[in-house]
């Protein structure tokens, strides 16, 4: 070992200084770590949680919501029912573009208030054209406007969902009733699914959602409308916390014109089956082979 020279001493000093500076630069991360529990960090994928684990996770999530948002909520894990395949249909002849559905979605799903987020985007389209290039999503004039029709777009719950294929960690998948869901505690926030979705149906939490405690919808489910963490992707889940218990999606209940039809595609007596059998139905971007479960139709 050579004796410690002046040069070595200076180098050691420099290295210490550098390391200290890095510690300073990264200091904000300690806030981040504080807000996160060890259980959250090591939590397993949804499909790997036993019933017991799930109960613990739900309790923890409820406690976190109370602590961070001041809201008492109940979070359940609602499973798909047997013999049910959900489908949605929308009558473009009666939709007036009022965006009541988008507003209901915003509230039902505990979306961030500041960004006015919603899973639904209503396109104002030129009559006679199905080309989205001749539409716009932002319009402030009175509706319905002559010469226009309105096309709400939300997750099409594709039967062949590109968003699911691209996810590197299986944080998003198709459930057996056809609903494509996201495990908000498994998603790494790469946004590949957002790039892959042809319908602009996915939303990323660019920041922590802000909602006043009194506006939080307390009826929540793990894969549905619970308040999402920052840095993960979310999407329309056909209000599975309602529909899997026999109720209707919030957007449908809010629609003043009855443009929306929701139901079980396997039930031959359902209204949605009647629409599919008797109307001229089409799906968006059929050529991409995504096989949507969201159907559009016009009255003749």
């Amino acid at each position, binding site marked *: 070992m050579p004796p410690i020279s002046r040069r070595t001493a200076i180098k050691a000093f420099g290295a210490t200084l550098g390391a200290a500076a890095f510690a300073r*630069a990264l200091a904000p991360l300690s806030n981040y770590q504080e807000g996160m529990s060890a259980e959250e960090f090591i939590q397993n994928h949804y499909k790997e949680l036993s019933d017991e684990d799930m109960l613990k996770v739900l309790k923890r999530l409820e406690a976190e919501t109370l602590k961070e948002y001041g809201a008492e909520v109940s979070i359940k894990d609602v499973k798909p029912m047997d013999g049910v395949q959900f489908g949605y249909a929308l009558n473009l002849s009666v939709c007036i573009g009022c965006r009541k559905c988008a507003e209901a979605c915003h509230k039902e799903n505990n979306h961030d208030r500041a960004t006015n987020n919603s899973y639904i985007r209503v396109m104002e389209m030129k009559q006679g054209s199905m080309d989205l290039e001749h539409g716009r999503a932002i319009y402030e004039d009175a509706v319905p406007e002559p010469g226009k029709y309105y096309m709400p777009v939300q997750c099409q719950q594709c039967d062949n969902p590109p968003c699911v294929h691209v996810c590197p960690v*299986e944080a998003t998948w198709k459930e057996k009733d056809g609903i494509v869901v996201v495990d908000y505690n498994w*998603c790494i*926030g790469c946004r*590949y699914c957002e790039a892959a979705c042809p319908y602009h149906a996915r939303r990323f939490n660019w920041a922590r959602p802000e909602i006043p405690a009194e506006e939080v919808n307390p009826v929540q489910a793990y894969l549905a409308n619970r308040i999402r963490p920052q840095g993960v992707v979310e999407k329309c889940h056909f209000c599975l916390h309602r529909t899997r218990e026999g109720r209707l999606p919030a957007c449908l209940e809010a629609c003043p014109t009855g443009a929306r039809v929701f139901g079980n595609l396997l039930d031959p007596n359902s209204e949605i089956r009647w629409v599919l059998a008797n109307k001229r139905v089409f799906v968006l971007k059929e050529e*991409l082979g*995504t096989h949507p479960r969201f159907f559009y139709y016009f009255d003749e």
Partner: protein
Amino acid sequence: MSDTQHAVSYPRFLLHSFIAATDGSRAFYAWMTFLTALMLVGANAWAHQVVEGMALTGMTDHVSWGLYIANFTFLVGLAAGAVMMVIPAYLYDDHEMHDVVIIGELLAVAALVMCLGFVLADLGRPDRFWHMIPGLGRLNWPISMLTWDMIVLNGYLLINAHIAGYLLYTRFLGKKPNPRWYLPFVFLSIAWAVSIHTVTAFLYSGLGGRPFWNTAILAPRFLASAFVSGPAFVIVTLQIIRKLSDFKFGNGPIMTLLKVMRVTVLLNLFLLAAELFTIFYTGGSHVAAAQYLFFGLHGKSGLVPWIWTAIALNTIAAVMLLAPRAKTHMTWLNVACVITFVGVWIEKGMGLIIPGFIPSTLHEIVEYSPSLVEWKIMVGLWALGLMIYTVLLKIAIPILTDQVKVDTK
């Protein structure tokens, strides 16, 4: 040499490497301090981004990938482009190239670390990166192209680190390397270099809903530009090394790389032209994004100056590289290489990623420009890459010039 001797000499090798990497002239310390300062800026910006969220970036749900993924894509090319030294050195037995090939392999190592850094910077939840580790997480393999990309990038990193490390170690011992321990990896690395950029292209071209990317020549285009930017960077590096260190070598490797670039720079422009022909002559759904990129659409034209700058740079570079002067005037050549490098960085970075999102899938036009935080993180990661590359070269050059050898005292 027996295992016990390795047990002694390998730690020595590491110690010498450590000394070589931390010892140097005043200029070296100044350079490292400068890079450290830039890294600090980047690290701090990243810490804020993690805590406050990706809202600090300029990205939106409409343009959900930006500067980070643009740099990532370009750097995969830079890593793959280094193979343009490996092929002449090993496949064509170009001896002069053989002497310096390690400079390319080390570049690949540094570029790949940067790639992984940019992916990490782009994650909304970097604390969950372990979900991608096989065994611990749930890797969606073989369906997701992103998992393929992670596997091939890490594999390429390991292959190059192994080849370079093995060759340096044997040289340090003063022994002839055993071809069994590196030649198979060299040939593997050639195929692997092609695969990393092909898989990265498939990441985009596999998305049916994004017509701008959904084209079969995306992978060939990626490779062509990789084989332009890689040699460009190496030529300049070789000239700097020749000037600043005791590592002396002839013009041979530089001339070989110039020959490569004279072909690839034209090939790159040709493939771009082929793409543009299909887009603009056919029209249809493909045209809107290209229209936005080259001419602006509905009054929005954020990328137009970028892309025309890139095209101008690439064209000027092609002319400069093809000029006879490029062979004789080294400054001329260096300028041409820098121009090429910047041109490809724009074209295969922002020029490729952003138009994929504009117009959006519902034909909305939401523009993107990177925020200050994104620029800072980018600069920090480039500084990190340059620091890694500098350190690796500092270790390699004394060994390659036989200034550092094993001593058994």
